[in-house]
């Protein structure tokens, strides 16, 4: 029951934070390329990597991993945007978006994991 509440609490913050980040990035850098979604997805992978590098703790994983990172990041928006880029004829942007999301996401996760290792010692 407590774990459910922690997931809910993390998601209650993560989902609106994704929207606000996306909006802020689009306001400052108007572009067809989905920088906002890329940013939240990479940031979420970094934070989850950090949590995975810490000693296992169910509460922390529920709050930060499943709730916050899970709701901050999104596969539906990422895929929708990629399909729309292809439909719009921006195949290069679509390919760059896929590649950058995966490469930067994995890089961020590894970095987060290593940082946690360094912190815990």
């Amino acid at each position, binding site marked *: 029951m407590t774990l459910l509440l922690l997931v809910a609490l993390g*998601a209650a913050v993560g*989902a609106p934070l994704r929207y606000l980040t996306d909006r802020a990035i*689009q306001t400052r850098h108007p572009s067809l390329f989905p920088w906002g979604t890329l940013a939240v997805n990479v940031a979420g992978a970094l934070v989850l990597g950090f949590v995975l590098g810490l000693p296992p703790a169910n509460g922390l994983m529920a709050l930060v991993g*499943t709730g916050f990172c899970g*709701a901050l990041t999104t*596969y539906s*928006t990422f*895929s929708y945007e990629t*399909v729309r880029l292809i439909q719009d004829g921006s195949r290069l942007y679509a390919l760059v978006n896929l590649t950058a999301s995966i490469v930067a996401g994995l890089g961020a996760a590894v970095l987060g994991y290593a940082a946690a290792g360094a912190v815990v010692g």
Partner: protein
Amino acid sequence: MPMNCDVDLAIPAHRAEMHPSSRWALLGVISAGGVLGALARYALETAFPRPAGTFGWTVFTINVVGCALIGILMVLVQRVWRGQLIRPFLGVGVLGGFTTFSTYIGDIQVMIAEGHPRTALAYLAGTLFAALLAVWAAMELTIWLVRPRAPVIHAPGQRR
């Protein structure tokens, strides 16, 4: 169709939705939707956990189903439904909270660490391919289902 389903500032209605009069209602429905989506994901992940070293079928299914649903939703929001909070609640909130990029990446990282790089690669590419196909197919199917039908014209004198 918007280029971004969370928020696309090229679209006037999306630009207007953070107006001070509607800002808190908007963030509230996104937050509530995110909680519902994340709890559904948590329930599925708890009911069907991924055994070590195996393909993450649960998160794969969550992400692909979420992608099909966003495809359906965006067509309906554009062509059928007019409510201003439907996309923020269902699209940004519920589906954004249900699907996850972080767990997808984290699971790939863990599969590699578990010594199963080929499973990790299959999961990486398989999710990507199925997710894109799901968005595209769901959009096309929904566009076809809600297409305007030609009105039936009755010639004068023709019996109805």
